[in-house]
């Protein structure tokens, strides 16, 4: 059974058609890579799958919910329950410590649990950095906090938009190892990347060009 079904999806920003007639099916537990030149619509696609935005035309069905018909409140609910997000620029909240940044995701999801958040940081190798503020962490460490935050609520789907774009080799390897663990645990992964080696880790690669799947 597929976790994600896109059917004839289009997304227009004014006159600009960022996505054009995209149909795509992603099975539960799949690791999908998305490639394509800059401006080809990769992030727009992630926004639609991630319930962060709604399509101009077509349908997006995620885990049985038709996102194209959902209200803003329902989209929030779906994001909270189903999705973990990993960003190229980490997006940690600057005034919160590493562990608090993880707990924010728990807080909006259900209840905070410090021990559980600490375990997530341990899993990404940051136990001793739990009480550091983001600015006291390296880029690789910040990205691992971001990963810990994405997996804390055990989401069915993890979306990563160029997660290793800002990392050195060592940190990239570490993050990818975490992805492999998630994949083995049955989490569905969609990873946007420019790096063919990273894309090759996925079971399938979708290529976008000018808003269309090639």
């Amino acid at each position, binding site marked *: 059974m597929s976790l994600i079904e896109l059917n004839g999806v289009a997304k227009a920003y004014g006159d600009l058609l960022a996505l054009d007639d995209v149909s795509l099916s992603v099975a539960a537990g799949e690791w999908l890579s998305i490639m394509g030149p800059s401006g080809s619509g990769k*992030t727009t696609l992630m926004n639609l799958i*991630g319930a962060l935005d709604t399509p101009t035309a077509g349908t997006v069905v995620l885990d049985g919910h038709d996102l194209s018909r959902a209200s803003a409140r329902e989209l929030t609910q779906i*994001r909270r329950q189903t999705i973990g997000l990993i*960003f190229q620029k980490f997006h940690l909240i*600057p*005034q919160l410590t590493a562990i*608090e940044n993880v707990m924010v995701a728990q807080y*909006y999801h259900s209840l*905070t649990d410090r021990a559980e958040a600490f375990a997530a940081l341990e899993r990404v190798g940051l136990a001793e950095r739990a009480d550091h503020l983001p600015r006291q962490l390296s880029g690789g460490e910040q990205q691992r906090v971001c990963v810990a935050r994405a997996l804390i609520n055990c989401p069915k789907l993890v979306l990563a938009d160029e997660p290793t774009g800002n990392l050195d080799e060592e940190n990239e390897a570490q993050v990818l190892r975490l992805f492999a663990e998630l994949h083995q645990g049955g989490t569905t992964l969609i990873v946007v990347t420019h790096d063919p080696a990273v894309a090759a880790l996925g079971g399938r690669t979708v290529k976008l060009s000018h808003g269309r799947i090639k």
Partner: protein
Amino acid sequence: MARSFFFTQLRAAVFRRRSRAIAAALAVAVGTTTLTALTSVALDLHDQLARQLRAYGANLVVTAEAGRLDAAQVAAADTALADAELVGQAVYRYENAQLNWQPVELLATDVTAALSVRPYWDISGELPGANEVLLGRDVAELTDTGVGDEITLLPLDSTALTGVPVRVAGILVSGGAEDAQIVANPATAVELFGQPDAVDLIEYSVVGDPQPLARALQQQGVQAAVVKRLEGSQAQVQQALGALLWLVAALVLTLMLLCVATTTLALVAQRQGEIALRKALGASDQAVRREILAESVTLGVLGGVVGAGLGLGLAALANQQVFGHPLAPQWLLLPAALVVAAGVTAVAAWPPVQRARRVNPAIVLSGE
């Protein structure tokens, strides 16, 4: 657990983003300071003005051209004023005395009579009975003497070792020369200086125009001065000043509102990314609104506490400078200022909350 994390985040926003938080709190603090100070001066305006204007309780003052009034002059004054309607009248005698080997001016009068023409006398303690005196505030401070103490008075030129013992019945604050004087009963003055009929000054509080009386007295070689009363204009002055103060207060309130709204709006604008992220993580609009409101009201209350305290202090200082009289702090203004500060920040947070509601979570991915 969830509740405690709400406060963890609130603390972080206020204390770990200090420079921004301070900017917002400062706007509130400055506003509250001004408001509290203005309100507390405005509330006390009536009493202060009355205190000032009552200083002109007497409207006809009789003195000799030179030296003391002689018996004939006193009699002339009595005759001239026999038919006048009087609110008050008091006879005074000035003498130079010494207290603890220091020269001090002694004012001898019947204090009850004096109060009828000098209603601004503020006496703490009791009116002096036999062998009792009032100490001007400055004298009391200088000699470290208080109500109930025994002091010994001597004429200034006396070299005697024992003087006249008197008890301090009360401390007198007038804001005028009396603060540096000792006020004694006429009998005490006679005991010290003799001359039972000595009179330096007579004050009358006459109903109506004292001008004709003054002229009549002057023809008999008595110096009679008319003191213009301001009573009539007091109400108007007070009304004008009061209206002005309230106007300025309203203006300050508006400015504070704008200032806080702008600061909070800037705060939210700066944190659009953070708000988008929170929404992407599943924060509802209500959750975001709650966080922004809590943060700005907290900053408002912090600023309000500082501002209200400073405001009361400032008002007391200003009052001391302008009226020479301390202002009793109006403690009720503290909670009132806090409520206003919290209210203003809550209202001011409304546009930023609306703006935060419109933040699209998708920008967190598309970003920059």
